[in-house]
C-alpha cells in the first residue's frame, strides 16, 4: 500500500517539476536568441528574495492570486471553466468599496458585512452564467467571458461621479471606506511594510477547499461530476443543481479575491486597482494541479516573478527587460499543459504495468504452491 503512496507523490511532483524546468530552459532559449546572458536574470531575481520588503510584497500578492486560483480550481474540479473570475472579483471589489464607503457599523459587524457583500456579488455574477448553463445550455466559458466585459461596463457606470464615483486628482475612486471596515495587517516596520490581515483568510479558504472536497459528501459529488458526468448522474448526483451550486461557490470565492488589497491597503476602488487577476489565476490553478498546497506554491512563484522582476530593469552593469518574467509565466502555463498530459499517460501506464506485474507474481506463487 505504501508503495503506491510513494508512487502518487512521484507522479504529483513530476508534472510541475518537468513544467518548470521546461519553462526555464525555454526562457533561456529566448534570452540566448536575443543575445542576452541566459542565466544571469535568474540570479538577479533570486538575489531579491532575501529582502524583507520583497518578501512582504510577494506574500501579499500571492494571497490575491491564491484566492482567485482556488475559485478557478473549484470549477476545474467539476469540469467547469470559470473564466469569469476576473469580472466577478472586480465587480465584488467595487460593490464592497461602495458599501464600505457608505455604511458605518462597528468593526465586528462592518467587516463581515463587507465580506458577505463581496461573496454575494461574486456569486451573483457567476450565478448568471450558472443559470444560463443549466436552463439554456449556454457554455459557461462563453457566458463568463462576456460577463467579464459586462462587468467592466457596469463598473464604468458605478464609478461615474454622479453615481458612486469620487474624483481624486485625475483618478476616479469610489471614495474612501469607513475606518471600521479596514482590516489591520501585521506591521513589520516602515521600511518593510505590512502583511495584509486577510492573508489568513486566504489560508483558511485553502483549508476549507481541501476539507470540503475531500471530506464531505458534497465534495465527493462535485469531484465525481468532474471525473465522469455520466457516472455521477447514475450515482444520483443532480448534475444541474451541481453546476449551479459550484458556479455560485466559485463566484463567492472569487468575490473575495480582491479584498486583501482593498481592506488592507487601498481602502477604495480606483482605476489603478489591479485587473487581470482572474486570468493569471487560471494558470496558477493549472500549475498547482487544483491542489490547495500546490496552488499555494504556484501563487508564491507567480508573485515572486512579479515582484522580483522589476529589479532586472535597474540591474548593473547589464540591465535586462523585466518582461522576461512575463515570458516565463506564459511558458510555464504552456509547459504545464503538455507535461501534465504526458505525466498522466505515463503514470497510468506505469500503474497498469505494476498491477499486471503484481498479479502475475501472485499467480506464479500460487502455482508454485499448488505444484
Amino acid at each position, binding site marked *: 500500500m505504501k508503495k503506491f*503512496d510513494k508512487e502518487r507523490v512521484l507522479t504529483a511532483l513530476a508534472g510541475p517539476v518537468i513544467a518548470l524546468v521546461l519553462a526555464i530552459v525555454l526562457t533561456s532559449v529566448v534570452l540566448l536568441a536575443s543575445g542576452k546572458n541566459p542565466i544571469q536574470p535568474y540570479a538577479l531575481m533570486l538575489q531579491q528574495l532575501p529582502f524583507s520588503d520583497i518578501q512582504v510584497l510577494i506574500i501579499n500578492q500571492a494571497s490575491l492570486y491564491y484566492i482567485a486560483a482556488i475559485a478557478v480550481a473549484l470549477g476545474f474540479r467539476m469540469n467547469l471553466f470559470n473564466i469569469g473570475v476576473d469580472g466577478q472579483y472586480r465587480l465584488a471589489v467595487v460593490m464592497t468599496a461602495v458599501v464600505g464607503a457608505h455604511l458605518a457599523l462597528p468593526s465586528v459587524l462592518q467587516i463581515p458585512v463587507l465580506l458577505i457583500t463581496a461573496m454575494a456579488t461574486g456569486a451573483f455574477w457567476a450565478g448568471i452564467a450558472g443559470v444560463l448553463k443549466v436552463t439554456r445550455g449556454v457554455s459557461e466559458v462563453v457566458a463568463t467571458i462576456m460577463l467579464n466585459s459586462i462587468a467592466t461596463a457596469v463598473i464604468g457606470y458605478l464609478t461615474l461621479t454622479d453615481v458612486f464615483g469620487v474624483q481624486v486628482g485625475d483618478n476616479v475612486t469610489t471614495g474612501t471606506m469607513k475606518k471600521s471596515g479596514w482590516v489591520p495587517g501585521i506591521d513589520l516596520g516602515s521600511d518593510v511594510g505590512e502583511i495584509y490581515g486577510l492573508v489568513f483568510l486566504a489560508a483558511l479558504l485553502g483549508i476549507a477547499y481541501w476539507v470540503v472536497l475531500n471530506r464531505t459528501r458534497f465534495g465527493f*459529488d462535485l469531484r465525481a461530476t468532474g471525473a465522469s458526468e455520466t457516472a455521477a448522474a447514475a450515482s444520483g448526483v443532480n448534475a444541474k443543481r451541481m453546476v449551479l451550486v459550484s458556479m455560485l461557490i466559485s463566484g463567492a470565492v472569487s468575490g473575495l479575491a480582491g479584498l486583501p488589497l482593498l481592506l488592507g491597503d487601498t481602502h477604495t476602488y480606483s482605476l489603478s486597482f489591479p485587473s487581470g487577476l482572474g486570468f493569471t489565476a487560471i494558470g496558477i490553478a493549472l500549475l498547482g494541479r487544483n491542489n490547495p498546497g500546490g496552488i499555494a506554491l504556484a501563487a508564491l512563484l507567480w508573485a515572486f516573478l512579479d515582484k522580483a522582476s522589476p529589479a532586472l530593469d535597474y540591474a548593473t552593469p547589464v540591465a535586462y527587460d523585466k518582461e522576461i518574467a512575463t515570458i516565463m509565466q506564459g511558458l510555464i502555463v504552456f509547459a504545464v499543459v503538455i507535461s501534465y498530459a504526458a505525466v498522466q499517460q505515463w503514470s497510468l501506464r*506505469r500503474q497498469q504495468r505494476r498491477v499486471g506485474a503484481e498479479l502475475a507474481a501472485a499467480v506464479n506463487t500460487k502455482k508454485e504452491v499448488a505444484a
Partner: protein
Amino acid sequence: MELAGITKRFPGVVANHDIHLTVRKGTVHALVGENGAGKSTLMKILYGMQKPDEGTIAIDGEQVSFASPADAIARGIGMVHQHFMLADNLTVLENVVLGSEKLHGIGGAARRKIKEISDRYGLGVRPDALVEDLGVADRQRVEILKVLFRGARTLILDEPTAVLVPQEVDALFDNLRELKSEGLSVIFISHKLGEVLSVADDITVIRRGTTVGTAVPAETTPRQLAELMVGSELPTPETSESTVTDRPVLEVRNLTVHAAGVSLGAEDEPAGGGLTEFAGAGETKRVLDDVSFTIHAGEVMGIAGVEGNGQTELIDALIGTKHADSGAIRFLGEDITPWPTRRRRESGVGYIPEDRHRQGLLLESPLWENRILGHVTEKPNARGFWLNPKGAQADTRRIVEEYDVRTPGIDVTAASLSGGNQQKLIVGREMSHDPKFLIAAHPTRGVDVGAQAQIWDRIREARRAGLAVLLISADLDELIGLSDTLRVIYDGRLVADADPATITPEELGSAMTGAASGHLEHEETAPEGTDNAGPEDEAR
C-alpha cells in the same frame, strides 16, 4: 496465409505470445477465445494496425510486413470491424467508394461493380439506399461489400454476430459459405461457440495471448471447445429452484417515455437495431410505449431485445436519470415516479449499469472512491454530512476479498483493473447495500468466464434472499438461464413473454425482431397473432 511465432508486448502485458495460425484458401477459419485473450490484438497485427515484436506473416508463401492497413489491403486483406465504420448520411454506393475512388470511379462503373459483387456473393445490397435507413444486418453486408470492393481475398470479421439476432446470424453464415465457395478465406473471430462450430472449417483457440490448440468442428462439442478456451470446467447460468414469492417489489404501470427533442416534432428517432423492414414505421417517438410489468421478491425478470429498442430508456426511467412522461413506478408499495435518482438508490435500488466505464466507475479514481460512488450518503461511506474514508476503505478491502477482485490494493485506479475485475467491484458495491431491487444491465458483458460464474452466483444468492432483479442482457443463454420470467422488448414495447424453462434462443430471437408476439410457446403451435413466425420456425 500463415502466421508464425507472433509476439506482441504492451507495457505490462504480453498481448500475444508465440501465436501460430494457418488459414487455408477457401475456408472459414474461426479464432475463438475469451474476452481479453488477445484476439483483437492479433487481428490488428494482421491488418497492419500494429507491428508484431516478433514473428512472421506469410501470404501465399511469401513473407510480408505491414506498416499500415493500406499495405494489408494491397495484399488482399480486408477487415470488417465490430463497430461499423459507415457514414449514415451517405448512400451505400458513396460509402463503398469512399477512400477508393481510384478503383472504379464514383459513378456507373462503381455501381456496376457493386451490383456484380453483391450478386456474386448473394449479399443483396442496394447501392442507392441511404445507410441510415439500413438495419444492422444490412449495414454489416455493406461493410463486407466494402472490403470485397477493395479486392480482398482474405476477410477478417471481428465478432460479427454480436449485434445480430439468430435469424440474421444464419443469413450471415450463408453469405460466408458463398464467399468461401468462391475461393476466399474468412477469419471469423468470436466467442460464441455454437456459431463457430456451425460455420467454421478450422478452429484455432487462443487463451492468455497464445494459441492453445486447434479443433476440427465435426469432432468437437461446444463444451470441449469451451474448456479448451477457458482451460477449466465451465459454469452454466441455470438457476436451481424457483424462489419467486407473491410479494411485489417493483410495479411499473403504463410507463411511457418520449424521445428527447420530441417537442420540436422534427426528430424521427430511428428504432435502432431493428431490421429495416420493421424499423421503417417512422412513428416511434415513444422510446418506451405503455410498458407495464411487476417483479416480485425473489424473482429475476429477464428482458430480451436487440439493443436500441428501449432498454436504455427503461433503465433510465427506473433509476431516475430520465423521468417518465406518463405512467407510474411503484417500489415496495410507494410511488417513486417523481423521486430523484439518489432517493431511489438510498431506498434500495441497486444498479449495475450497462456501460460500466461511463456510468459505473470513476476510472481515474482509486478503488475505494469508486466504492463510494452511488452510495455517498450511506454507511459506511458517510457519517451524516461528512465522508468517512476509513470506513469506505475498510469496506473496499472486504469487497475485494469477498468478490475476488484481483488487485494489488485499493489505492490503484479503477482504470488499471481488467474489465472483469471492475465488474466484480461494481457488483460487490451494489450488493453491499442490501438492495431490494437490482437493475442488472449486461452484468457479465466483457467479463471472462470465471468472473461470469461468480457474478451469476451472487445474483442467484441475493435472489434467494428475496431480491427482485431486472436482468437486461444481449446474451440469450444468460437470460434464459438466469430468469424466472422473460419479456421481449421491441420498439419500446414489451411485445412478448416466455417461459425460460422451455424457450430456445431461436424462438426468443424471432420475437426480438418483432416477428412474434404474445406468449411464446415452445410447442409446434405457432405463436399466436403472427404470420412471420411460421417460416422462421421452419428455418430452425
